[in-house]
């Protein structure tokens, strides 16, 4: 691929440059100094926030890995009642932003809400006094809410990996007398582990970056303290310093993860067209399996979504649908589509640069470094990416004002917002396509080249068809994540350009919840077709798994 190395690296570097913009702006802000803030932060804020963050991440990590791999193993390799429906339904929580789920669950479980009121009414004749109920405004509550919407990040790649493992290994394991759990633990899970780890790291970064749900449920994470430092302590410098410190930690963890994945390379390789053998469960075990898969769907989607639907119905019945609903949906969809279309080519360039020349003895050092840098934006809180871009775009506009007058100002236009989405979410397709490339053997390139195919032809005729499932899955995930994104959208959107997420936030911030419920429900509903594609894309006729974040 010698002929394309230069433009390829240029395009990859351009993508990284966009990611670098807000990071550099934040570095500049951090360098301005934050006075005597740090001794205060270290004494009174950061230790507690670090502990809460670690506990939250440990909890969410345990939930998403346990639920994600467990349910994936059940639906991929077993036959039980409702398996096909549950296999698709388990993806549904992806449509629900964590902050929306948090709002809904607090309403549902509140002592004045439907569940507790109903229970009290039922038990009133028994005169038992107040019922002890779990408090959702707590760390365990937050872990449950986040875990129940984030587990699909593990479920999807784990299911794909289990499906790709095929019959032979599992049969061999069974032949050796391993059954059920042992098969899962000793054969299936180790093989799927790279995919699980990749998915879990995405979920954990989402949890780390969340501010809406955590703040609402009273969990003071590091990211919450970044926002408080910026807004209440009026120190963007201090906030940038804390965020960059977190970023260094995350970069270290990501490097560790990619090192671990590199060591595991090959172990996760599945076989194209492998056909999984379904084990039929006994009736009792089958119903238990169905129940185990139903609970995450209930917690992560059905109950909060049903509550939203009920609340939205109340609002619409009383006041009619919000006038601007159509405009909100249109804006959300346009912005998400723009972000997706811009992110994919850059991610493809990054993944290609990181793959290098498909020669076993040459590690593409520059390409790998670019890929790693390109993924960093995912580890920055969305609000800070937005501030970084505000500062960077402002500086650019100052330059064009002085040197290139006819150029329009970029600040306050949709391009600033789309750039923020690009920075935040480039990691998703970049990681997905990198993993997708890992499944394409270099021998294919060699044969194609031997037959005289140029690099463009190899890309178009060999790589892209093989990458199609990864591309589709990555595109859909970016689209969904962009639709749900809140903090950057709030800060950067242009005049009179409300999206579903911002409309919902505006109502929730003011306490007119029913009005927000309509937007929230529309946000969820708009995500459903995307998820349907994601589910269908998971098993095209060729038998290639969807989000192939393995390898």
């Amino acid at each position, binding site marked *: 691929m010698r002929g*394309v190395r230069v*433009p390829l690296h240029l*395009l990859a570097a351009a993508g990284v440059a966009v990611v670098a913009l807000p990071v550099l702006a934040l570095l500049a802000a951090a360098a301005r100094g934050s006075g005597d803030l740090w001794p*205060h932060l270290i004494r*009174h804020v950061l230790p*507690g926030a670090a502990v809460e963050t670690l506990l939250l991440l440990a909890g969410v990590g345990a939930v998403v890995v346990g639920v994600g791999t467990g349910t994936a193993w059940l639906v991929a390799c077993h036959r039980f009642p409702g398996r096909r429906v549950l296999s698709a339904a388990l993806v549904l929580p992806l449509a629900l932003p964590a902050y929306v789920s948090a709002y809904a669950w*607090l309403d549902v479980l509140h*002592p*004045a809400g439907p569940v*507790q009121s109903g229970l009290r009414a039922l038990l009133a004749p028994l005169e038992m006094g107040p019922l002890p109920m779990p408090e959702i*405004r*707590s760390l365990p509550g937050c872990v449950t809410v986040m875990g129940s919407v984030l587990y699909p990040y593990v479920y999807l790649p784990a299911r794909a990996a289990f499906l790709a493992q095929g019959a032979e290994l599992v049969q061999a394991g069974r032949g050796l007398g391993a059954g059920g759990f042992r098969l899962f633990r000793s054969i299936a899970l180790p093989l799927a582990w790279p995919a699980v780890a990749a998915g879990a790291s995405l979920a954990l970064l989402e949890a780390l970056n969340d501010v809406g749900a955590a703040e609402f*449920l*009273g969990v*003071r994470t590091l990211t919450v303290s970044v*926002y*408080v430092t*910026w*807004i*209440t302590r*009026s120190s963007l410098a201090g906030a940038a310093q804390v965020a960059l410190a977190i970023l260094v930690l995350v970069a270290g963890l990501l490097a560790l993860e990619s090192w671990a994945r590199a060591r595991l390379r090959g172990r996760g390789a599945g076989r194209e067209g492998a056909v999984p053998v379904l084990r039929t469960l006994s009736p009792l075990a089958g119903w238990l399996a169905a129940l185990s898969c139903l609970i995450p769907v209930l917690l992560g989607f059905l109950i909060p979504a049903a509550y939203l639907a009920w609340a939205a119905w*109340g*609002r619409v019945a009383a006041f009619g649908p919000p006038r601007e609903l159509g405009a909100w949906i249109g804006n959300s969809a346009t912005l998400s589509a*723009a972000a997706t*279309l811009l992110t994919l*080519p850059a991610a493809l*360039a990054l993944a290609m640069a990181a793959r290098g020349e498909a020669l076993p003895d040459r590690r593409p050092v520059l390409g790998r470094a670019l890929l790693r840098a390109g993924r960093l934006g995912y580890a920055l809180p969305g609000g800070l990416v937005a*501030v970084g871009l*505000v*500062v960077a*775009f*402002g*500086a650019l506009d*100052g330059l064009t*004002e002085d040197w290139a007058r006819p150029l*329009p*100002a970029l*600040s*306050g*236009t*949709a*391009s600033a917002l*789309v750039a923020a989405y690009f920075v935040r979410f480039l990691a998703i397709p970049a990681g997905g396509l990198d993993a997708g490339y890992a499944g394409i053997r270099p021998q294919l390139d060699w044969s194609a080249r031997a037959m005289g195919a140029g*690099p463009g032809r190899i*890309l178009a005729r060999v790589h892209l068809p093989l990458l199609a499932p990864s591309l589709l899955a990555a595109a859909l995930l970016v689209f969904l994540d962009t639709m749900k994104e809140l*903090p950057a959208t*709030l*800060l950067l*959107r*242009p*005049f*009179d*350009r409300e999206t579903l997420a911002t409309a919902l936030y*505006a109502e929730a*911030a*003011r*306490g*007119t*919840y029913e*009005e927000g419920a309509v937007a929230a429900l529309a946000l969820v509903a708009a995500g459903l077709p995307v998820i349907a594609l994601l589910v269908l894309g998971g098993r095209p006729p060729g038998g290639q798994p969807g989000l192939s974040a393995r390898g």
Partner: protein
Amino acid sequence: MSCFRRAVFLAASLLLLLGGPLGGAGAAEVNVYTTREAGLLRPLTDLFTERTGIQVRTVFVQGGLAERLESEGRRSPADVAIVVDVGNLMELVDRGLTQPVESAALEAAIPAGLRDAQGRWFALSTRARAIYASRERVPEGEAQGLTYEALAEPRWRGKVCVRSGQHPYNTALFSILMIQHGEAWLRDYLTRLKANLARRAAGGDREVARDILAGVCDVGLANTYYAGLMLSGRGGEEQKRWGEAVRVVMPAGGTAVNISAGAVARNAPNRAEAVRLLEFMASPEAQTLYANGNFENPVRPGTPTNPIVESFGALTPREVSMAEVAARRAAVSRIVDEVGFDR
């Protein structure tokens, strides 16, 4: 590598398309950056457009409004900033992001304490931070005698609900208490108030009413307009029940008052229209709409308050200067951390 060229071309054209100037030239317009939610301002801006023919474009920004204004610098399209909370307001003023305005109409409409002597900001409504007390569990006589200070007394142990101590509504209230009683007193007060909390300091003000209804707590701190919104039925029957569960108490010894305010942006391209918009916002008609839209208190003397808000009792603000309240915000925020109020 035509594929790359195509990708680059696509990316570039998309960027241009999205980055193109959005505003149409021609008709007079005024651009508003606001931390107020757009639905609240729309009736006012619509009326303004109807009266003057000036188009109003708004963007609701929360967190980062100052950064956005500052970074856009000379090229900023912003004409007017409308913000809530005096701390956020003073941040704009202190960073030089507003400009002085001389307007006889504004000076006549807004009392001197509620606008900047140099015309860099004008309060458009006042927002009272009140005490919510359970109608069921706190006798009326006792409720009416409540003060902010009393909420820290041992008799309310485990019975107080409040949102995060770092929220601007609370830091502004605590700043007022600090001005009146001193720093050491505030530290002690927050420690004792924290000990009285029935749950973590989290959520929003309306959660206070709902938690009181549910028996989680008996008293709490919340702004009056939330009760107004709930009682109006605009949020549905459910919220009406929350509102009916609480008695809104204007504390003895004066109520802590915060403001929403407007200012002309430093680089306002449409300065004249910006001043006209602010003058309109202070007019009797707009004041009625503005205050009723969110159940706040109008700043223009003689403007009737919404009847629901009126029923909470007369508003006697604690006499402190708005600038002083804003100046103490950082110190208060530190004390909130030091006593571990939110943990």
